[in-house]
């Protein structure tokens, strides 16, 4: 219990620090919000091309704008949280502050979790903005359970966090050129169904979408929000995500502990 309070205190320290740093770059916040509004607007006008077309094979894509907005919001959430964990150590290394932070009684895993906290809040805010702008300016509404969708979002985020820890381990040992970030970022955007249904892909490529956790997360969240699916209909993707988590989390924690040990032995933890 004491360790949990201690971690919460440190998370608060990082949230306050990152917030203070963020508000010292006020323009960046407004530009980010404006970018989201522009993206949603573009998605709206592209969706107008499909107005009046009948016989959409894919139920969740009957309203393409709703599908895109959901996809973009969820992709933003996954990727921000993934990269936040992966870059936590690297950001401190680049700033030159890692050594001084590690001189305090904080562990390396504690540092990674705590320094990603504000990114999680930011990702939640920015992802919500996609939905809010869609609803407010373009009349996109969702009938399903927000609570269930949020729970699936958290589950998928945990899977991405495991991959983020693997990526952080890679960055700790090799410093640059993390293949996990490159492969995951590109393949998730292309194959997981953010912009179009993966079923449209050639059969061989559909297999790629099947090994991406985002595919299942997106399918379940869209199903819940757009098609008003319940837990029963979403259990397939949820089960797959749980298997991903059960496999990836222990592996990533083991690899991470090895990477920390290696970096400390090499004395390269604070190098970049």
């Amino acid at each position: 219990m004491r360790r949990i309070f201690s971690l919460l205190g440190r998370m608060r320290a990082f949230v306050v620090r990152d917030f203070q740093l963020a508000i010292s770059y006020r323009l960046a916040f407004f530009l980010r919000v404006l970018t989201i509004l522009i993206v949603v607007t573009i998605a709206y006008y592209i969706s107008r091309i499909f107005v009046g077309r009948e016989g959409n094979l894919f139920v969740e894509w009957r309203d393409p704008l709703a599908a895109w907005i959901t996809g973009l919001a969820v992709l933003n959430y996954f990727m921000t949280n993934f990269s936040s964990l992966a870059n936590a150590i690297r950001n401190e290394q680049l700033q030159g502050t890692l050594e001084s932070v590690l001189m305090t009684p904080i562990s390396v895993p504690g540092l990674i979790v705590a320094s990603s906290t504000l990114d999680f809040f930011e990702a939640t805010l920015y992802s919500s903005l996609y939905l809010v702008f869609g609803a407010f300016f373009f009349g996109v509404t969702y009938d399903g359970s927000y609570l269930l969708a949020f729970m699936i979002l958290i589950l998928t985020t945990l899977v991405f966090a495991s991959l983020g820890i693997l990526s952080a381990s890679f960055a700790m040992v090799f410093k640059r050129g993390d293949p996990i970030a490159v492969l995951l970022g590109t393949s998730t955007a292309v194959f997981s169904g953010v912009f179009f249904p993966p079923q449209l892909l050639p059969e061989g490529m559909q297999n790629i979408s099947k090994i991406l956790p985002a595919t299942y997360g997106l399918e379940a969240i869209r199903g819940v929000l757009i098609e008003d699916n319940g837990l029963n209909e979403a259990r397939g993707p949820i089960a797959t995500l749980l298997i991903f988590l059960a496999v990836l989390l222990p592996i990533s924690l083991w690899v991470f502990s090895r990477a920390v040990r290696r970096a400390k032995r090499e004395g390269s933890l604070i190098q970049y």
Partner: protein
Amino acid sequence: MRTSEKLANPSGQPVAIAIRRLTKTYPSPFILASLLGRPPRKPPVQALRDVSFDVHDGEIFGLIGPNGAGKTTLTKIIATLVQPTSGSVTVKGFDSVSEQPALRKLIGLATAEERSFYWRLTLEQNLMFFARLYGMPKSQARARIAELLAQVDLENSAHQRFGQLSTGNKQRMAIARALLNKPPILLLDEPTRSLDPLAAVRMRSFIGSLALGDSPVTVLLTSHNLNEIEELCGRIAIISHGCIRELDTPDRIRTLHKARERVRLVLDGISRESAVRMLAPKLSEVEVSEDGSKTIVTFAREVDDDRLDRGLRAVLENHTRVISCETERASLLEVLEAFEREEAVKGNAKL
């Protein structure tokens, strides 16, 4: 090496930092090729070899040595930032590998690295962040920050961004942060490196004051500035090629090492040319110059050789008046240089 005889701690003083048979070898960098069983391109680097010594409670202990001698590695191992290959470091009984969190609460590290702060945050915000990482309650942290900023003469800059500070003030901030949780042990890595002479004097005075008072702070000071080390430290260790070569008081190290000293004679009533004619047959490598009506003779000698006797005898036999005779004792720099020469000779002998 005279280190081993110090380990018994004959003074009986409590030990703050105990270093035992410490060795650090940096392995070859991890590259993908190593997964395929290929030999590494860069060989391992042995940074520390069998280093053992104690730092006593409340003392200012100096660590000097040339670049690459192992000073920073040793400091980082004590600070738990690097793991030793073998041997141990304990700080007040806590092991630097197995008891890291407890040990870190006991030490503060201040380096001359300016980038170790958040430049867009104010001094107060920076210190508050680190205070929270130490788990200090907000009110206690505020009081401590105000106290420390006053101590390092930065109380009027509390709301200024760190990036706007001068280099000297940035180094003061590093010391303020190192003292944030009132650690009994302070590791200072070149604390006056970028300071102007006046600021350096003030910083030295501040460091000196840390070891005084009711709860003295133990300081391990690493520096290239040998005058600083001599001025502040009760004991020093000279580290070279990863080994502790000497460990004693600055005075004793100078006398233990057979070094050269410089002799300066100020003569009256003799021209420069006459002085050269008189002394050149008696002393080799003598320098003679004129300063107004005085003639200044300088030459180097091994401690206890007869060059000074021969020089003085020649001067007195010539009925020349000696205004002053000064010898400049071997400096720590000369001791350090002597070690480097010895290492070079050993290296050549091996070849």
